[in-house]
């Protein structure tokens, strides 16, 4: 097993004890293998255990049970070996020193991460060019936009040219322009050009769908499903989804009479409520669903679409990726 150059987990467990008998199994028997050069996604809502898993892999936490091998090194037996092979992007823009400039930040992390002094200047120049930050190299980080800070965080992650990257929620809180830049960068530069092994966590289904070769659904500390995005979507028993976009508050109780006809997914995003009903015959449900929504909210649009990863996630876990609303 130590031969793997990617990542391999076997029955990994991390438990947080709150009180004497009250414990949270943040990572609960997780096993999977990420091949060298693979872009692997871990998709789950907030609190699913994704960040805890990343912290176990980056040796910030010690697992309670199981094994984790990163680049051929065991996280328990050889944490320094693991950290030499890892670039960890976590904490977003706060993972930088805001009073320092990009060059000062990268110089510091280059020394900390063991980049030879003779290569540091050239490496920093390359990374600033790569992230389109060269013109900002002497600006204090606090004066950069959130998107630029995130780009600099990525440069910081790459400063020692690690073969394996752990990327935790890379586009969280970014505007669409920077989110698009970062997604494209991960896909084309890090994955296709530089051939990095990447474990990416996100709760954005589009991001996972667009970027990842394989995706694991994580919920309540467990892996609920693991496959390619295409094959995950094939797991839906229904092939179509009726979607109603509206403004107003709706709870799943309103749809209690409809549960037998398909999987309901209620979610909120950008101030809108989305009612998605996975079903084999959306036309049959159209009037009933719209009527229920109309009683409680203002309908903006109605459409029939293919199942998304979110629909599959709801189908498999009964939970939404976007918020805490309940599903059936």
């Amino acid at each position, binding site marked *: 097993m130590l031969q793997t150059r990617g990542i391999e987990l076997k029955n990994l467990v991390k438990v947080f004890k709150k009180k004497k008998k009250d414990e949270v199994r943040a990572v609960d028997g997780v096993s999977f293998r990420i091949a060298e050069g693979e872009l692997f996604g871990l998709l789950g809502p907030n609190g699913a255990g994704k960040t805890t898993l990343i912290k176990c892999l980056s040796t*910030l*936490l010690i697992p309670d049970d199981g094994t984790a091998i990163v680049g051929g090194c065991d996280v328990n037996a050889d944490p320094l070996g693991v950290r030499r092979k890892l670039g960890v992007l976590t904490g977003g823009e706060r*993972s930088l020193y805001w009073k320092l400039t990009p060059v*000062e930040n990268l110089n*510091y992390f280059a020394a*900390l991460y063991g980049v030879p002094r003779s290569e540091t200047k050239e490496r920093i120049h390359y990374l600033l060019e790569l992230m389109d930050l060269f013109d900002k190299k002497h600006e204090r980080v606090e004066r950069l936009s959130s998107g630029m800070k995130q780009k600099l965080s990525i440069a*910081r992650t790459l400063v020692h040219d690690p073969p394996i990257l752990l990327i935790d929620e890379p586009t969280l809180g970014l505007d669409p322009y920077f989110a698009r830049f970062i997604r494209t960068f991960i896909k084309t530069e890090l994955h296709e050009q530089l051939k990095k092994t990447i474990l990416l966590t996100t709760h954005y289904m589009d991001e996972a769908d667009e970027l990842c070769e394989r995706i694991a659904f994580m919920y309540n500390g467990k892996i609920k499903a693991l496959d390619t995005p295409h094959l995950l979507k094939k797991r839906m028993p229904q092939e179509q989804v009726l979607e109603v976009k509206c403004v107003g508050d709706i709870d799943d109780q309103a749809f209690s009479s409809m549960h037998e006809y398909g999987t309901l997914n209620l979610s909120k995003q950008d101030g809108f409520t989305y009612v998605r009903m996975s079903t084999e015959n959306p036309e049959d449900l159209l009037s009933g669903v719209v009527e229920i929504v109309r009683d409680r909210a203002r309908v903006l649009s109605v459409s029939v679409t293919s199942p998304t990863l979110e629909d599959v996630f709801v189908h498999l876990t009964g939970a939404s990726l976007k918020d805490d609303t309940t599903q059936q």
Partner: protein
Amino acid sequence: MKRVIHYLRAINAENMKEWRIELKYKPDFFRQFFAPFVYLLPYFLYGVALLGGRFSEHLQSITGVADMIAYTFIGYLIMGFLNTACWAMGWSLRKEQWYGTLDTVFAAPVPRWVYVAGMAFHSTLHQGLIMVFQAVIISVFFAIAFKTTGIGVVLVIVALMVVGLYGLGVLIAGLTIGLKQWWVISEALNTLMVVVTPIAYPLAVLPVFIRKISLVLPTTYGVMGVRHLLLGEQIGYDLTTILFRLAVILIVWVTIGMGVFMMMDRYGRKKGFVSLY
């Protein structure tokens, strides 16, 4: 060897980073040079009011030094190093958490004590610079004539004391991993050590049982050795004994400090304290 160079470079990078951040806050940086001087003045004036001048026959009879201001000032400088160990090093991890950079720093391929050592190195340079600046100002202002013949030994004594205090600093840094209100311990240790160390008085005035505690502190030998060499204080120990005891204390304190730090680091990673920090 490659690894040692990496660690030394990381320690220096930490030091340079701290200088750069400090220099971004220029008014606060320069305040640090003058503020301690201002803090000290009331105590000098208090002493002058009590004695009717800066010289004391009683102080001379028990220490061999009559100049109260020179005597107290040496202790005050040593106290600066103690504060550095308790606060700057102990504060280091918490400060990173406030910046938001702790996880990133802890994910670097260096042992975590390297980071604290970098902070210690910076703190020593910082405190040393302030100490020299204040020594010059106070010497000129109060016309204190320090002996300069033993300055080399003074530097050795200060170096041994400071490294011994690193043990305390790294111990406190370790405790901060598991304790939210770490400053309570830091404050308590700092205050106790200031009282138990003969900062502004000779060892002889301390009660016997406190004197025993005093003799396991690096600051006690630091202050006695430096005062002996710069002012001619009669301390009841020869320099060889002072240097030997400082070396032993250094080994013991650093070993205990590192042990506690590594234990707390592991404990914190097991319990998730660093993430929750």
